[in-house]
């Protein structure tokens, strides 16, 4: 069974204090690893897709990296508006082999204080 573990569960940073979120996974036949941002009361917002080990993607203050066992979401000089829950998901075939499915971690709640 595919598993995704995110750490830490919660992270509190001061504005400008860079840090990283971790997503470790076990999956058979990884098709892609996804990062989403979720604000309270809203659906997840797509951020990045990573397909192979060594791949990196950047968007503003965020950079996602991927190894064979884990992914990191690096946040450089965060601002209060970066406060949200960050979700990691892996995509692989479902148990029946009929469709690809996303398996999500529980997320990291990031709070950036001004």
């Amino acid at each position, binding site marked *: 069974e595919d598993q*995704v573990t995110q750490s830490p569960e919660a992270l509190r940073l001061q504005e400008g204090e860079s840090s990283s979120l971790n997503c470790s996974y076990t999956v058979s036949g990884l*098709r*892609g690893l*996804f990062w*989403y941002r979720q604000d309270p*009361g*809203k*659906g*997840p*917002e*797509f951020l990045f*897709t990573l397909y192979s080990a060594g791949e990196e993607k950047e968007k503003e203050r965020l950079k996602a990296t991927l190894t064979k066992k884990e992914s990191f979401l690096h946040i450089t000089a965060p601002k209060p508006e970066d406060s949200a829950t960050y*979700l990691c*998901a892996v*995509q692989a075939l*479902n*148990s*029946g082999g*009929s*469709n*690809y*499915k*996303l*398996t*999500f*971690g*529980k*997320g990291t709640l990031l709070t950036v204080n001004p």
Partner: protein
Amino acid sequence: SAVISQKPSRDICQRGTSLTIQCQVDSQVTMMFWYRQQPGQSLTLIATANQGSEATYESGFVIDKFPISRPNLTFSTLTVSNMSPEDSSIYLCSVEQYIGEQFFGPGTRLTVL
């Protein structure tokens, strides 16, 4: 990316009743997905709905409890049947627009008393 809307945005229901949640997309998509997000838990896939075929349910979810319709390429419904307080959750639909990339609706917050 696709714009996805859900109705209702929230509801409070009595146990034993059923609620149908609607998901509308502003473009035609082949695959639509229904998820559940319980407090403190990760998003869990309920089923995949392809237009013109029966929905495919994940382990632990059955059609009698969560019947799904997919009448066309822009619309789907999920019904939560014979509800109990354990069904209180946020229900989200999503669509796959590019290979592997799923975009989510705003969710429906359901409370069952």
